[in-house]
């Protein structure tokens, strides 16, 4: 049996205060998935989320006739899933483990209920999730610019 993965010092968990971290982790279930495990499917009910302790998860989108295309990967410390936070609580993408993944899994309804009952914990948590979403949105916009691609006017190779 290998040693349990350490608590990541970065990402959402690393940004929470020690007290809030403890409170969130009290709601976590430790999971350990082999590579190529489907965590959720596009259109499914977003009733859980994960924080990766080790390994990588790929987010994908199904392209008709081409199968799933990976749009982003999430590594150690990363939050997998945010559709659980806002209605209609439905996944916009699919997710699959790229390697063995050790993660904390959370029940979305339970976390939402604790956030509602304890806003002093809920607000910082939701703010951190919003920060994560904002960072990913900025990253997506940057990628839309195709920064590394040929510049206008440059000859094709």
């Amino acid at each position, binding site marked *: 049996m290998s040693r349990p993965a350490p608590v990541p010092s*970065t*990402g959402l968990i690393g940004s929470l205060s020690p007290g809030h971290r403890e409170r969130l982790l009290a709601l976590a279930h430790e999971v350990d998935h082999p590579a190529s495990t489907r965590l959720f499917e596009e259109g499914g009910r977003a009733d859980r989320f994960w924080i990766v302790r080790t390994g*990588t998860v*790929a987010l994908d989108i199904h392209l008709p006739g081409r199968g799933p*295309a*990976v*749009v*982003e*990967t*999430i*590594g*150690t*410390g*990363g939050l997998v899933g945010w559709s659980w936070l806002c209605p209609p609580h439905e996944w916009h993408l699919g997710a699959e483990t*790229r390697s063995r993944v050790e993660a904390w899994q959370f029940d979305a309804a339970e976390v939402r209920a604790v956030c509602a009952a304890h806003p002093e914990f809920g607000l910082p948590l939701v703010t951190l999730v919003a920060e994560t979403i904002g*960072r990913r949105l*900025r*990253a997506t*916009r*940057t*990628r839309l*610019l*195709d*920064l*590394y*691609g*040929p*510049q206008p*006017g*440059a*000859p094709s*190779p």
Partner: protein
Amino acid sequence: MTLVPLPHRLTSRHRETADTVTFELEPLSGGLGPFAPGQYAMLYAFGIGEIPVSVCRTSGDGRLTHTVRAVGAVSRGLCDLPAGASVGVRGPFGNGWNLRAARGHDLLVVAGGIGLAPLRPLIDAVLAEPAAYGRLNVLVGARTPGDLLYRAELPAWRRPFGAVTVDRPAGGWTGRVGVVTALLDEALFAPENATAFVCGPEVMMRATARELVDRGLPAGRVQLSLERNMRCATGHCGHCQLGPLLLCRDGPVVPYDQAEPLLTVREL
């Protein structure tokens, strides 16, 4: 430093990607002074023109290695040169990376696309003297897996942390997908005792610098290598002006606290 191009012979070339070539130049007589990591040469493709190109490895005996991406007439001319061809070289120019200020620090080397070229000699220098620095993190972003430079060397840069990510996965790519800043979550560094070296497209450098500062790095310890058109490379023609700086002479490496107000790309 020389103002007149010194003739060099292209001794070997290696195609890195569909549009990028690495080649080695050997001086025909007495080489140029030593190049520090982050400095550049003006390479003259005879009959076409002259462009600034960073050194991506130095040998100590005057031989220079450059990686060039074909984007226009001169860079394409250089990429197409066969072994044995002549190239005129001026240099060394520019300030280079301030590696001395980073001694004892954790290091973040963040590269996008061809931006890895000027960072490779810096990685070489750190690996030659590992005890002088903290943890080395090498984060590399590219457009597709086929656009990755120095593929054979990437595995040696993985410890203690090194990772590669691509914007567009293709051809059975099983690695990371996404922007290079996403890798910062996993990098090993203490922000109050770290120095970052960043080179890539300007929007990528701004995004990286901003994120590093958000994570607690002082802006003055985020070094960016900036690009502007250059002609004289000696601070006389004004082509490379960025605010009060002449990048050919005062750069190309500029700390983010100085660069930030000068980079006027609109908010994404």
